[in-house]
């Protein structure tokens, strides 16, 4: 009983296919930070065909992939993962989705030719193909409560333009970079326990406060709301370095 209570599970959706650039950094960060709090942390691979154990997952991670890989997970996501994923989220599991994963959780992705690929509609967002690719450092003023510092840093590389519906609110507002669509100043989305974003970098290693926000939220459904503070000086120094690089360029605008 205690053993199970102490367990912390990260469910990695399609680790072999949706791991374009170091998304593994997000997994490692979640696992280590749980471990350092004395939890028995483990990651389970949720590849194609696998749905076993999804009800025990505290945090799901869904990364981005190349076009070929994204097409390969599409059927599996809708046929095998959608139902248990929705059920887990309804019971308080947390989801972090980056880039391609973020898009697939929304209502649809519309190509340049106007063709629509439906997503699973877990979050109230829609995405359209854009011409210009947004590439570069991103600094975001986060709008979620209780994270310190209030900035998030990362690297974006996407051509999709994502727009939020009334059911989702932005993860933050861009100070530097393009964010969701390059036009409304928003980046990412938060809808209940689901966080979507375009930030790679990897995201969580340089934003330990966001990692803890996700862990805390996931554990709260099991009545474990408090997290012991950690020494984050190395992580926050890297965070500060990106802010510092962004400073002069943000001022130019």
């Amino acid at each position: 009983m205690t053993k199970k209570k102490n367990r912390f599970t990260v469910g990695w959706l399609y680790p072999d296919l949706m791991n374009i650039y170091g998304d593994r950094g997000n997994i490692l960060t979640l696992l280590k930070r749980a471990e350092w709090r004395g939890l028995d942390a483990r990651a389970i691979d949720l590849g194609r065909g696998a749905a076993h154990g999804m009800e025990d997952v505290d945090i799901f991670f869904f990364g981005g992939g190349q076009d070929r890989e994204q097409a390969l997970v599409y059927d599996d996501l809708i046929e095998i993962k959608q139902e248990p994923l929705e059920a887990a989220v309804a019971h308080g599991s947390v989801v972090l989705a980056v880039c391609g994963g973020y898009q697939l959780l929304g209502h649809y992705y519309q190509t340049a030719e106007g063709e629509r690929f439906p997503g699973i509609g877990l979050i109230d967002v829609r995405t359209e193909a854009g011409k210009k690719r947004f590439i570069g450092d991103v600094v975001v003023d986060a709008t979620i409560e209780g994270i310190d510092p209030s900035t998030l840093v990362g690297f974006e590389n996407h051509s999709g333009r994502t727009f939020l519906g009334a059911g989702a609110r932005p993860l933050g507002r861009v100070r530097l970079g393009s964010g969701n669509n390059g036009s409304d100043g928003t980046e990412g989305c938060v809808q209940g326990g689901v966080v979507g974003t375009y930030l790679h970098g990897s995201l969580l290693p340089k934003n330990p406060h966001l990692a803890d926000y996700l862990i805390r939220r996931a554990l709260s459904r099991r009545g474990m709301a408090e997290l012991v503070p950690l020494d984050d000086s190395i992580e926050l120094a890297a965070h500060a370095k990106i802010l510092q690089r962004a400073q002069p360029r943000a001022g130019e605008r």
Partner: protein
Amino acid sequence: MRRTAAVWAGKATGALSRLSGRGGGTTLPGDVARAIDPTVLRKLTGDLTEGSIVITGTNGKTTTARLLTSIFEGMGKRVVSNRAGANLIFGATAAALRSAGPDGRLRADWGVFEIDEASLPRAVEEIQPRIAIVLNLFRDQLDRYGELEKIAKTIEAALESIPEGAQAVLNADDPRVGEIGLALARTPLWFGIEDPEVAMRKLPHAADARTCPKCGASLRFSAVYLGHEGVYECPNGDFARPAPGVAATHIVLDGFDSVAMNIGETRLELPVGGLYNAYNALAAFAAGMVLGVDGQYMAERMHGFKAAFGRQEKMDFRGRHLVLVLSKNPAGFNETLRTAVDMAGATHFILGLNDRKADGTDVSWIWDVDFEQLAGKAEVVVPAGTRAHDLAVRLKYAGVEARPPQTEPGRALDDLISVTPEGATAHT
């Protein structure tokens, strides 16, 4: 007339930019000459008495080009080759210009050109190579998200268009290259490693290209040599690694110092280490075989080979032995670490990570490098470079205790020296 003018203008630009110290005159003359005569490269390479070889792939182009150059030069041939990294069409043009005489004619026998993957179609069209080598296709540190697919198609089209009688020499162990080669109308010459002794059992995290091009199933590997290079097959039986016609067996790795192997009847020992260099030697050897060069002769030339500058170098510094190794992507980085830790027994490191662009570079690929293999083995690790702080975080989560990050290279070296005993070997 037009061609002579192009050659002269190009040569003058080369001299000028060398004098002004900008860019070392590597590609600028190519731009100028091509502006005057867009067909200048085609004309110049047409003057070669023997012909050309083009080499593409993510890793190993420079070393493979140097190996072939050394083989040809040992036979008394005059070789034209582009400088390391100047691997766009302009770089190849600049190289040909350097060897052109005042009459605008190229006086050389062989052209050995390393060519960026995306430039291959144009290079093939203009250079009309006798041999085209594809070494590997790794996901690069470059921000080319989603482009590997496009690059594979580009290479395939280029290989289809090599002249009649020309030979494609391809790495059978790389699934992406395998996919390209199996789609070709003409049968390529495959090379690969056949030695379970040096194989890992599972794919490292940095690996990509892991699905069957026919049915999308995840590929099954019975041996993994480097990154995603190994012996693979689709579980549904519709795609598998082609049997290599030129294979390396009985491989002996000795850290950064050497790698030895058998290729057919020939025992070959390269005085630079690492499995990646085994692939480079194998590629060069296969190309030589196509041309009918004696295997024993090639082994002798390669034995006397010096590593391409910057990729791997050894030096003494304030009484410490330094080994410098350059890695450009996760697969290369992993192999370098594996060589350093497991085979050379290295314990002192400076790990450098630099930005290429002012507006930031995606460094998230460092999370695909297995720095975990340093944990418990490395005694001193100094994260360095403009992105030293990112490395410091990566090392922390790999369970590796590191020194404070140093963004100044000099300071990083000072720090390493201060904690490295005299006579010890450090890896940077």
